[in-house]
């Protein structure tokens, strides 16, 4: 069979060479390219994406359904305390002393002299004492704390007050109660004693909200809030942005760089900030670039308020 095929192959080859002796190749004429019409183009496939449902574990107290429950809980606990008045201290720590000023050095100059002259003695003798005192403002005084812009403060205060107002809390303003107390003749408004008198007379709880600039924070600042009972000085709640729910080290562990992936775990241990920090990607000439957008002060303050509310509700329910 093989020999037969070989003979046939030789036969075909021979005839082929005879017929193709012109040096050109036999080939097959094919079909033309069909024109491109719109009905040829297939529509993009319909994508069916089924997303997994988000974990409903209460990790983020700022989630809508959790905030509603928290406000209701705070409202109930607040009502059992007969709706106490809450005085808000914005970035103003309660000073240790009543006076914001203290002396660091004092110089006493004492002089004695005799004056004589003129046609009529007697001589005059004199003695005088002059005291120089150098005073400093207390470190905790409001003017020494880092101050943010006014519009930033408005947004922050708005974000903090909103959850409390939603829960029906009675909020009083520090400046207003100071002025009212001062107008009653207690002392000069702004003095330390007026602060205390105003707090004792016109508020039941003092909410102190402090913020400091921090390079470790992903949003550039850290927050601290505490709630004191004005009558007794008892601390009811203490919320720090470092242990606040919803804050923590950034989620990303690796960063893509020109030399490959970079482990960020060690760096992130030092950093704190909102976990759900918004990110988006923007296309550029060198590919996609990640842009981080820190949350607005309103949302940061909102979250701080919810954490304070939770701490207060915990404290009131226990007591």
């Amino acid at each position, binding site marked *: 069979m093989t020999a037969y095929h070989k003979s046939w192959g030789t036969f075909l080859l021979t005839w082929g060479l005879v017929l193709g002796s012109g040096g050109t*190749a036999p080939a097959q004429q094919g079909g033309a390219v069909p024109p*491109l019409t719109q009905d040829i183009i297939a529509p993009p496939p319909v994508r069916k994406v089924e997303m997994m449902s988000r974990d409903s574990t209460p990790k983020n107290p700022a989630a809508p359904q959790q905030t509603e429950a928290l406000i209701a809980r705070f409202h109930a606990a607040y009502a059992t305390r007969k709706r106490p008045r809450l005085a808000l201290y914005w970035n103003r720590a309660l000073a240790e002393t009543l006076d914001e000023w203290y002396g660091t050095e004092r110089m006493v100059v004492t002089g004695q002299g005799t004056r004589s002259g003129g046609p009529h003695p007697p001589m005059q003798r004199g003695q005088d004492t002059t005291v120089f005192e150098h005073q400093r403002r207390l470190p905790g005084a409001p003017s020494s704390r880092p101050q943010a812009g006014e519009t930033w403060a408005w947004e922050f205060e708005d974000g903090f007050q909103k959850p409390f107002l939603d829960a029906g809390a009675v909020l009083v303003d520090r400046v207003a109660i100071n002025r009212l107390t001062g107008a009653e003749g207690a002392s000069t408004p702004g003095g330390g004693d007026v602060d205390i008198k105003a707090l004792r007379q016109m508020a039941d709880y003092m909410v102190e909200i402090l913020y400091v600039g921090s390079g470790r924070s992903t949003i550039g600042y850290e927050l601290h809030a505490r709630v004191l009972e004005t009558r007794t000085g008892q601390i009811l709640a203490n919320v720090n942005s470092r242990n606040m729910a919803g804050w923590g080290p950034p989620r990303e562990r690796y960063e893509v760089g020109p030399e490959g992936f970079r482990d960020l775990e060690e760096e992130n241990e030092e950093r704190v900030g909102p976990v759900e920090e918004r990110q988006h990607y923007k296309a550029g000439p060198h590919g996609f670039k990640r842009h981080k957008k820190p949350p607005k002060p309103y949302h940061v303050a909102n979250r701080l308020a919810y954490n304070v509310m939770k701490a207060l509700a915990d404290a009131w329910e226990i007591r």
Partner: protein
Amino acid sequence: MNRHAIVKGSTVLVMFLSASACQHMEPAPICDMGAIASQRTLVSVPAAVPGGASPLQEMPLNSVSITDHRILNKVYVRNVTARRTPSGTVELYAQVINCTDHPLQTEARTQFYDAGQAPAEPVSAWKRLYLPPRTSNIYREFSLGTTSIHAYMVEMREGE
């Protein structure tokens, strides 16, 4: 004279008997290279001088041109077809038959042309086809462009 006629008759008889005894069916595919060559039509490319005759004859567009004389009479291109893909690009496929009793390797590449018969995109890379004895294989290529593609030309050579 009679003896001569007997010898001739015997020879014819022996030839007839031997021919009938050796009759086999030829396994397909069977390539009639003479017929294949007769189907070939060459066209003249446009002349360098307007109005003049072109000295160059080549295969027309939308065809497979076997450029290697070593496989000239060994393979047969059964059909060449082009169609549009759902994305609008052109899919080209050609069925190539190995007419010999020996394994063959061929290579092919495609140049796509636009409406003005200018190259629409770079020529494709050579693709290798493996052809066992008397078998066929499919050469397939896709264009990169969509609206710019109006014609094609496939070149085929033996795989080294």
